């Protein structure tokens, strides 16, 4: 393994947050071109190919993370259960993700129900949404958008990596067929 790869691996494995290319370059003791850095990261990624972790590039940088197929081992080890979000929370998130920036009123209009204050707070506390500004209408309601951390937590680099919304009429068969209820 080259010295560059050894240092990059060590940096990435010991950082709690994803690292940007700029951060990695600032940590290195000698000048490294972006090109060389990228090649080093690519090589490192293939080195880990058949291991339990993978090197990924998400919204806020590069990080090592466990592969999905190993979740069973980790779940056996973990005492704390990850939070399970209600349908209200996930639907609210979906509206913000696909229609951002949106106001609380927009969310209520699409879902057809009034929004519990706790629902938005849950998403804010998770660091997935934030207020990006205010709409210039009476009352100046807050405009919500998703954060880079939301993308990073869902293992995505940009919003374009999300499954596209099924549009208009193709939706109909789904509506007719999907008789399953999620209770």
């Amino acid at each position, binding site marked *: 393994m080259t010295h560059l790869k050894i240092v990059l691996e060590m940096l990435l494995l010991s950082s709690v947050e994803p690292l940007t290319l700029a951060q990695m370059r600032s940590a290195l003791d000698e000048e490294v071109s972006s090109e060389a850095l990228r090649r080093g990261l690519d090589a490192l990624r293939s080195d880990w190919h058949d291991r339990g972790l993978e090197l990924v590039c998400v919204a806020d940088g590069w990080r*090592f993370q466990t592969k999905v197929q190993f979740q069973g081992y980790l779940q056996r080890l973990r005492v704390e259960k990850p939070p399970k979000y209600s349908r209200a929370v996930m*639907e609210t998130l979906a509206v913000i993700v696909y229609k951002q920036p949106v106001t609380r009123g927009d969310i209520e209009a699409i879902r057809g*129900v009034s929004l519990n204050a706790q629902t938005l707070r849950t998403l804010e506390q998770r660091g997935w949404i934030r207020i990006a500004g205010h709409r210039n209408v009476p009352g100046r309601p807050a405009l919500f958008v998703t954060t880079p951390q939301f993308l990073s937590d869902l293992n995505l680099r940009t919003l374009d990596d999300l499954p596209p919304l099924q549009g208009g009429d193709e939706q109909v068969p789904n509506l007719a067929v999907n008789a399953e209820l999620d209770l």
Partner: protein
Amino acid sequence: MNASLAWVNGEPLKELPPDLYIPPDALAVYLNTFEGPLDLLSWLIRHHRLDVLDIPMAQLTAQYMKYVLWMRSQRLELAAEYLVMAVWLIEIKSRLLLPGVPDVDEMGGDIDPRAELVQRLLEYEQIRWAAQQLEALPRIGREIFAVHLSPELVAESPPLVDVAAFPLIWLEFIKHDRLLSHHKAARRELSVRAAMANLLSGVQGDFFVEFYTLFDVRQGVAQWVVNFLALLELAREHQIELVQNQSFAPIYLRAAGATGEGDLF
């Protein structure tokens, strides 16, 4: 499809009976899982295999009303949205039934009264679907975990704070405050009391003041209003007198109780 809808007397309820009779215990559990009237409507449409683009309004409204009335009879907490939706459904149904002037769009084409309902159902359905997709994505802390070396080895040093930041922060507060006090200053400037004092000092002795001189163009409309209010106030307090010889003649002001030696008339 194997998921049971609810448990009734220890028995899993796999599917709701087509005739809509559902044991009350099950229905209570079941209705609480709806995320509002759009969710209930889109379930009814799916369950009865109706065509969302050609909704039989009478049938859908009847089904929906059965649920809503049932919920009311059970004193289930019924959000206002459900009743609003009921009103809307009935309105659409009656517009379809009533012969009369059809709604037309700008192009002169007929508008199906159901169009907005369909639009909202489809939009909600998209979001319901998207929420399921988001839920299924692997998530940090659930299916995937970021690496973590023991904290003492990569201990984050606590944030450093520069003392010099405090006065700057405070300046921000003061600036904010100045904005507010600016408004207060503006209010003082337009004080009716000040205008009254000003007016009174102008009519000392036996001088008359012509009414129009109070409305100097340079002072602006706000000041005019204040001057006028001051004038009315002074007149009410009998501190000044207003004199007008005849209709549309000039109006004059003078201090109350002036001897009238300077009388113009």
